[in-house]
């Protein structure tokens, strides 16, 4: 296996042993709720419609987060609960039926309707899974109907995708026990990344590779005891738990960020399918070389830069690992909404000593810590970024790390560039504020 470059080995002292125990915070969480994951899920599953059952706040969140993306009629909407529903004047289920009918008659091209629970629907104990079953009987010919909760009570940001995939796994058919072994890649990846991985797996001789979610809702993979699962993202806790019951635990690996992560991730799959080392090296060598070369361009800007992560997507530990190991940056605090010890084990092992891990958030106290640490770059959400910039800090807005293809060899350079850009930009501007 390929290791980090010699210079990095020196910079990275020997004590990268067990991960420190994180700071657990229960104050104000400045994070999105799981509904926001609909932003990329609806683009990924091209024949799905996401119907949030929630409040005006949910609808407002979606359009604020979507920004200018609403040029065409989007494949998501909100069924806004109003006072008639609360006072019992209207029956919530009847109202929902009417709205579903309107959506599906307006969009006959939709093959999967996803009912998405919200904070108010959870508090009102509106059972959307039951509603989905009832509605599916009615629309069986036309489309599949499933439900998940993107409520902020249970999920942050990317965890909405976890809940969606978990609901999708429930409707995946059971594969026969004697079916040939297959690889199931779990987690929404940009199409271009998915295609790159598919080509690599094929070259490695792994014949049957399936991705979930697929681009079309009709192509749900069969899942059985011969299915080997690999997670593309670290935030798929619930989905992994469900899959474990049907086909065993996910293959442990780093996540496919950067040269190191991508190689380790592919290696885990290759080992599970008995791919020999020579073949693995031959197939991955060009990608590894390209990834190293691409990241190299940004190493000069990023090396030694002290980086502070505010919690956002649960990708933070692996982003820090990549920046530290491949670009020579120094993470000082890694905030994450939740850190799954088992799914993150390999990642945490590679973080430098002395880094502060924080889980959950108390945003005011974290801002205090951040100012005291005086980092070179702050990775944070858009609610915090401009105020930090106005104080003179460089920031990288974290939501872009979720919307941009960053996984795999060919995107390693792009990933480094995302962090380098704010620093380059500051260097390029001469007019003082």
């Amino acid at each position: 296996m390929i290791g980090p470059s010699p210079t990095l080995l020196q910079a990275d002292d020997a004590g990268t042993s067990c991960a420190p125990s994180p700071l657990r915070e229960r104050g104000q969480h400045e994070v999105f709720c799981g509904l926001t994951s609909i932003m990329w899920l609806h683009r990924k599953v091209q024949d799905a419609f996401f119907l949030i059952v929630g409040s005006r706040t949910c609808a407002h969140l979606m359009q604020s987060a979507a920004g200018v993306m609403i040029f065409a009629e989007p494949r998501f909407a909100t069924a806004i609960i109003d006072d008639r529903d609360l006072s019992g004047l209207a029956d919530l289920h009847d109202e929902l039926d009417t709205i579903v009918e309107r959506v599906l008659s307006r969009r006959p091209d939709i093959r999967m309707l996803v009912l998405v629970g919200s904070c108010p629907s959870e508090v009102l104990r509106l059972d959307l899974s039951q509603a989905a079953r009832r509605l599916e009987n009615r629309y069986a010919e036309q489309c599949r109907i499933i439900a998940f909760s993107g409520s902020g009570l249970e999920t942050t940001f990317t965890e909405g995708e976890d809940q969606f995939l978990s609901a999708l796994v429930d409707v995946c058919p059971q594969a026969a026990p004697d079916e040939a072994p297959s690889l199931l890649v779990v987690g929404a990846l940009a199409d271009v990344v998915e295609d790159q991985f598919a080509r690599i797996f094929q070259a490695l001789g792994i014949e049957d590779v399936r991705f979930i979610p697929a681009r079309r809702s009709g192509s749900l993979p069969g899942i059985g005891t011969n299915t080997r699962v690999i997670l593309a993202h670290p935030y798929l806790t619930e989905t992994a738990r469900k899959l474990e019951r049907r086909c065993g635990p996910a293959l442990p690996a780093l996540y496919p960020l950067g040269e190191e992560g991508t190689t380790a991730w592919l290696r885990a799959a290759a080992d599970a399918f008995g791919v020999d080392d020579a073949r693995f090296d031959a197939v991955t060598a060009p990608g590894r070389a390209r990834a190293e070369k691409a990241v190299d361009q940004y190493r000069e800007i990023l090396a030694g830069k002290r980086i502070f992560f505010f919690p956002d997507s649960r990708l933070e530990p692996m982003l820090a690992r990549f920046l530290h190991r491949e670009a020579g940056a120094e993470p000082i605090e890694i905030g994450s909404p939740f850190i799954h010890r088992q799914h993150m084990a390999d990642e945490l092992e590679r973080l430098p000593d002395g880094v502060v891990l924080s889980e959950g958030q108390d945003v005011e106290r974290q801002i205090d810590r951040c100012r005291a640490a005086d980092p070179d770059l702050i990775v944070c959400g858009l609610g915090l970024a401009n105020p930090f910039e106005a104080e003179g800090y460089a920031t990288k807005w974290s939501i872009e790390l979720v919307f941009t293809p960053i996984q795999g060899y060919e995107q390693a350079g792009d990933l480094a560039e995302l962090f380098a850009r704010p620093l380059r930009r500051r260097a390029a501007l001469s007019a003082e504020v």
Partner: protein
Amino acid sequence: MKLAVWTYEGPPQIGAMRVAASMHGVHYVVHAPQGDTYADLLFTMIERRTSRPPVTYTTFQARDLGRDTAEKFQAACRDAVDRFKPEVVLVGASCTAELLQDDPGGLAKALDLDIPVIPLDLPSYQRKENWGAAETFYRLVRAFAGRGRGADRERSSAASCNILGPTSLGFRHRDDLVEIRKLLEALGVTVNVVAPLGAGPADLARLPDAGFNILLYPEVAESAAEWLKREFGQEIVRTVPIGVGATRAFVREVAALAGVDPLPALQSETQRLSWHTRSVDSNYLTGKRVFIFGDATHAIAAARVARDELGFEVCGLGTYAREFARDVRTAAREYGVEPLIADDHLEVEDAIAAARPELVLGTQMERHIAKRLRIPCAVISAPAHVQDFPARYSPLMGFEGANVVFDGWVHPLLMGLEEHLLGMFRDDFEFHDDVQASHLAAVSPAGRAAAAGPHVEAVPDADADDGDSAATWSAEAEKELKKIPFFVRGKARRNTERYAGERGVDVITIETLYDAKAHFGR
């Protein structure tokens, strides 16, 4: 339950945040689940605010439910007061917390804070953003201006006023305020307090000192202005100074209340709208059909300017603000159009398509709709978008506002004219699509096609219609139709087909085309 793909207004707590974020010394503690903090980025990204809005959220989660959400609220409230040291704290609940019935007002009172606590009761399942802003501002004004009630207050002078309504995330409020201050300065009228934008609690306490109130944005400040009138007898200037006529009327109204001479302000006017609109090139604007939709204040003002100052024809008028539906209905009657009171953008889209306007004045959503329908559009109203906070000075109110209106509403039409010229020359012997543009002579043929791309793309199909007429077009008639300018071609096609349909004509000839033209007039 109501289906929404897009909302013109956020929930009422957003309105409360806008008021809190407009002021200093005010902090808003909102009982809300994790995720509701998205609202911060409206301020930091749309308005590019350099500080976080003064809002603390409890961000409770499922594990807190039924256990200690109330305690969580009290801790958040106490910490926020300790940390930010506001002069007053607003407390309230977002939609989810409203269902929990934790009573933030009572919980905050029980903390025995040494600053005033104003509980906000903003029914999330019934009301919306502007109502929330108005209610919050009203509560603040009552709390602080009400303290001097009954006492024999001495007015600083009759020629002193308050400006009420400018708010964070308001549509062009920042620049409107500068323009209004200029007018008042020219009149010699003192500005006592501007609120909520830039005011603190102590300023609200001084509101009764002014001779009268200028109500710039009724959506935010009407209830407060009405209360001040009842309590302190302060008259309200209600003319919204958008357009030349309204600005002049505004100046006279203010001058009369202040007992000053309006002439200095009227003579200082620097507007060019009234001349530009008389310039011969503006003949082109005559009778342009314009569809107007927005908040009530801006929609009503836009209709008046469109008809009386630009010579347009108002072919549609509507608002998403139900609270002001009556005003818009009254205005619509004056223009002889059916008022559209709706917050469903699909309904608005249908109404625009049916009205077949040549210009749309609306919100960002109508901009998208107009783009789809290939109609020029200018944005005149909130909901706020990052484009509505330009770096340059760009008011809608006052005399400079009239200049901005002329440029902003007429330029999209001139671009329409350019497209029309391109369309006219599309099949011209000299300028057809396959001929290289004269300034691109050095470019290879491949590059030429690419260079022509955008224009070609913008023009074709402008007249294509999904008309399901039974009549078919003869080749000659089809060719003749192509000679008609593209922006009226669709109408000509539909009128001709309707004419043919009504008369049972099977094949449309050149004769039918011109018969129909004569029948329907312009």
